[in-house]
């Protein structure tokens, strides 16, 4: 029997992950032990404190550059930056999830098992307090994301993928209103997500096969081995290409890139809006964090092979997102297609393999996350007796009814459209500049052209809000409680600050933009 050697573990460096997972487990205990009327407060506080503690640990270990837990986790600049980003954005999302003043009882169903559209269901929709299980679920998801961006081998990455995906599938199904839509969204997300996971796993297997047979090394799926195998393996490159393609499918699915994007509009529309915001901001960060690491660390030397393909995917994603956004009549679907187009821009950043390109992509992720969370925060506010009024025609004349919130939303839309003095412009510049420098002029031109198309739907919403007369059915904007207001203001302020003075965050991103191998 061979002796098992325990890997050394740097506990301080992986503390953020441990804190989030610990808090999630503790949250399950809270569900079991704390009286119902206290649970909401306790759970929300617990989740926020955990995020805060994890963020503190990230900041404290800011200079850490190690690979730990065997070869499983790499705690380096990009990991820490993206973990910080996920935690900050997750804190904002938690504020939205925890709000119970905009909708009485919160945005979540009181009892998930009640049959949709039944009399019981109508009763629970009237204002019984929502499930508190959403907090441990969210905390698990955050923990999974933290592992996902740190994963240094494909198996760890796969497990992290499942850890953050499963809670998200559930969260999608828990909307208080329009529950059939919500459950359908969750089902769709789950089925397609399961397919994507399968693709990913199959890709891992092929890559493992490819790494076998390098002289002096055993086969493995950690990134150092893959990196070595790309240049040295005697195996047929068909294995490598097939493996890369399957891995990419799994990751691009999470990133909502075309042609793996079809779930996005349905899920964004059906999921409870705070969860949609959480997915749009944090899942994007996690998915692109993993994409960056896989393609810039493991497969860096194969970039001649994957750049044209990923470039085509990027162009397709931008086109699909922009063109289909034009035809949308529902604000959540519009934001979903906009998020698809943004995935395309981010892919341009992934294909700019320089330090500036990496820094620009990370900057973009943070800037976009703030804006999109603020956007969904506004969506939760525009409502009538039946819940959120997401159809665009209902937003007509909103600028007259509630000029303040309409102005905030207009600002966010201008940011999405890339108007200067917003983070939307600086982040586009941060990506397009290095991409052009890296010789990807065609991607930049495609990005610019699709930005033009994409400006139209945003502008249409602005026209709706300001230039149209309010109709009979124009809902009013609910004055938000403290939590949603805080999230909204943080998002808008960050959009402004990152647009006017992006230098500090850029410095931080540039300083962090180096992977350990």
């Amino acid at each position, binding site marked *: 029997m061979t002796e098992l050697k325990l890997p050394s573990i740097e506990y301080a460096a992986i503390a953020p992950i441990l804190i989030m997972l610990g808090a999630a487990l503790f949250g399950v205990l809270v569900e079991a032990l704390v009286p119902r009327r206290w649970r909401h407060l306790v759970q929300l506080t617990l989740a926020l404190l955990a995020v805060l503690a994890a963020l503190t640990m990230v900041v404290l270990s800011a200079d850490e550059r190690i690979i730990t837990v065997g070869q499983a986790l790499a705690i380096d600049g990009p990991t820490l930056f993206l973990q910080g980003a996920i935690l900050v954005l997750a804190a904002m999302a938690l504020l939205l999830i925890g709000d119970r003043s905009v909708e009485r009882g919160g945005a979540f169903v009181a009892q998930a098992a009640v049959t949709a559209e039944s009399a019981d269901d109508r009763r629970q929709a009237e204002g019984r307090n929502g499930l508190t299980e959403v907090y441990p679920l969210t905390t698990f998801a955050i923990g999974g994301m933290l592992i996902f961006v740190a994963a240094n081998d494909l198996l760890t990455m796969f497990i992290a993928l499942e850890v953050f995906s499963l809670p998200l599938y559930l969260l999608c199904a828990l909307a208080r209103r329009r529950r059939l839509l919500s459950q359908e969204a969750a089902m769709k997300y789950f089925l397609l997500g399961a397919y994507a996971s399968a693709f990913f796993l199959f890709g891992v297997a092929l890559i493992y096969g490819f790494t076998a047979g390098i002289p002096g090394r055993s086969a493995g799926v950690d990134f150092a081995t893959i990196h070595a195998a790309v240049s040295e393996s005697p195996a047929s490159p068909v294995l490598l290409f097939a493996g890369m393609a399957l891995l990419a499918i799994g990751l691009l699915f999470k990133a909502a890139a075309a042609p793996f994007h079809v779930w996005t509009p349905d899920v964004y529309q059906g999921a409870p809006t705070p969860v949609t915001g959480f997915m749009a901001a944090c899942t994007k960060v996690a998915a692109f964090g993993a994409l960056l690491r896989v393609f810039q660390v493991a497969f860096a030397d194969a970039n001649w092979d994957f750049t044209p393909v990923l470039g085509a995917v990027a162009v397709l994603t931008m086109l699909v997102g922009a063109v289909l956004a034009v035809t949308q009549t529902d604000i959540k679907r519009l934001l979903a297609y906009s998020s698809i187009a943004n995935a395309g821009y981010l892919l341009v950043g992934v294909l700019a393999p320089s330090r500036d390109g990496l820094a620009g992509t990370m900057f973009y992720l943070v800037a976009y996350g703030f804006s999109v969370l603020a956007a969904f925060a506004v969506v939760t506010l525009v409502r009538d007796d039946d819940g959120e009024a997401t159809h665009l025609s209902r937003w007509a004349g909103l600028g007259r009814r509630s000029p303040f919130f309409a102005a905030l939303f207009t600002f966010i839309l*201008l940011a999405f*459209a*890339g*108007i*200067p*003095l917003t983070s939307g*412009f*600086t982040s*586009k*510049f941060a990506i*397009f*500049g290095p991409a*052009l*420098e890296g010789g990807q*002029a065609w991607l*930049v*031109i495609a990005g*610019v*052209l699709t*930005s*033009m198309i994409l*400006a*139209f739907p945003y*502008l*249409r919403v602005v*026209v709706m809000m*300001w*230039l*149209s007369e309010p109709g009979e059915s124009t809902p009013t904007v609910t004055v938000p409680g403290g939590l949603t207001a805080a999230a909204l203001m943080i998002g808008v302020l960050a959009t402004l600050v990152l647009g006017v*003075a*992006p*230098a500090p965050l*850029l*410095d931080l991103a*540039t300083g962090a933009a180096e992977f350990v191998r």
Partner: protein
Amino acid sequence: MSNFPFLSVLTVAPLVGALVVAFLPRHRPELAKQVAFAWSLLVLVLSVVMWVSFNAGGDRFQFRESYSWIPNWGVSFTFAADGIALVMLMLIAVLVPLVILASWHDAESSKRSVPVYFALLLVLECTMIGVFAAADVFLFYVFFEVMLVPMYFLIGSYGGHQRQYAAVKFFLYSLVGGLFMLAAVIGLWVVGGKTFDWQALSQVDISTGTERWLFLGFFLAFAIKAPFFPFHTWLPDAGGAAPAGAAALLVGVLDKVGTFGILRYCLPLFPEASKWFAPWALALGVIGIVYAALLAVGQNDLKRLVSYTSIAHFGFIGVGIFAFTTQAGTGAVLYMLNHGLATGLLFLVVGMLIARRGSSLISDFGGAGKLVPVLAGVLFFAGLASLALPGTAPFISEFLVLIGTFTVNKPVAVIATLGIILAAAYVLWMVQRTTQGTLNPALTEVDGMRRDLNLREKVVVAPLIALIVLLGFFPKPVTDVINPAVQATMDDIGRTDPAPSVGGTVQEAAR
């Protein structure tokens, strides 16, 4: 005084004013108007002081200031003005107070917040000043794009018929141009060694192919902004729908950003490409002159008519720029100023006429001169200035453009001269159909048409008339400032004026 940071203060001052005005209570519209007007006068005074401290014979760029902004990308707040920019800044400073005064009651009819209207005008002034004062390409781009936002809301919220359509069309056209420019800006940044400083970039050598693409990106944005044929279709809609004051600024100043951009960015930064594309640009200019003038003749809407005349005039400016002679260049810059004054006046007067009649259709007028003689007289004067009658300022600029072009490109100059004849046609016919002839009986039933210009309106038109006449007879103070800047631009592209000579045929005949 020359160390005073004129340009940054001038840029920021209107913004501060806008914030003050925007937060005035909505039910005190009069106070908002007064504050806005006083604030714009303050900007005017400061600009005059700046004009006086500008040394016409000194450096090309004066009042240079630079503050770091985004060091990671080499972006800084760099302001500097050459003679061309200085003239445009003065034009803005003169026009904005007059526009505010002229729009005194415009916002009230729209049921929307009056203070916001004036705040938007001041924001617009801030961005317009910034775009002319910037000496950093990134900063220029920022102002170039942000400028759209206040204008969009001015047209969309306070405009007339079809305002939504016009506002969206305006925004999208400009944004499309802007995004092409963004691609070129990034490209320039990459080939220029990651700096945005204008002076550093003008020293960079760029390979011919790249240079042409970059030129095209910038030129497209400016050609849409100016607008040149065939990118002009947004202007009649926007000009027709915008409130008269905003339209005066749109056509008088905003569109000059396009021609200014060509002079400041396209020619000096991409000299080879400019020369390569010059025939095409000249062709666009000439087509614009004739085509837009023909369309102007056919208009029945006063504001659309004035918009089309402007497109024809921008054709002249384009021809003047791409003729690459000092005379034509000076003429083009002078034209930018004079056109701002003359068309600004025309738009404001037309706005006064429309406000009285409640309609902008020429066919709703007729013989109005019998009811409002002074207003009709001012309209006639503005029309004459617009068709470049000798003795008015536009004549000098048009003449300079034509003789400057004639020395290097006779066919273009000859065709462009046709534009003068067409200008007479559209102006005189418009004046005839609105104010001359038999009185349209419907007019006597409109209350407004019985009131001639009041004191406020006289104060609006008087300075513009005075400036047009003054510069028509004595343009020297302005040309002194413009000439060195144009000369420097011509040096940048390496063109020298052809030596004056008697035509070949004459010499042969003498033999």
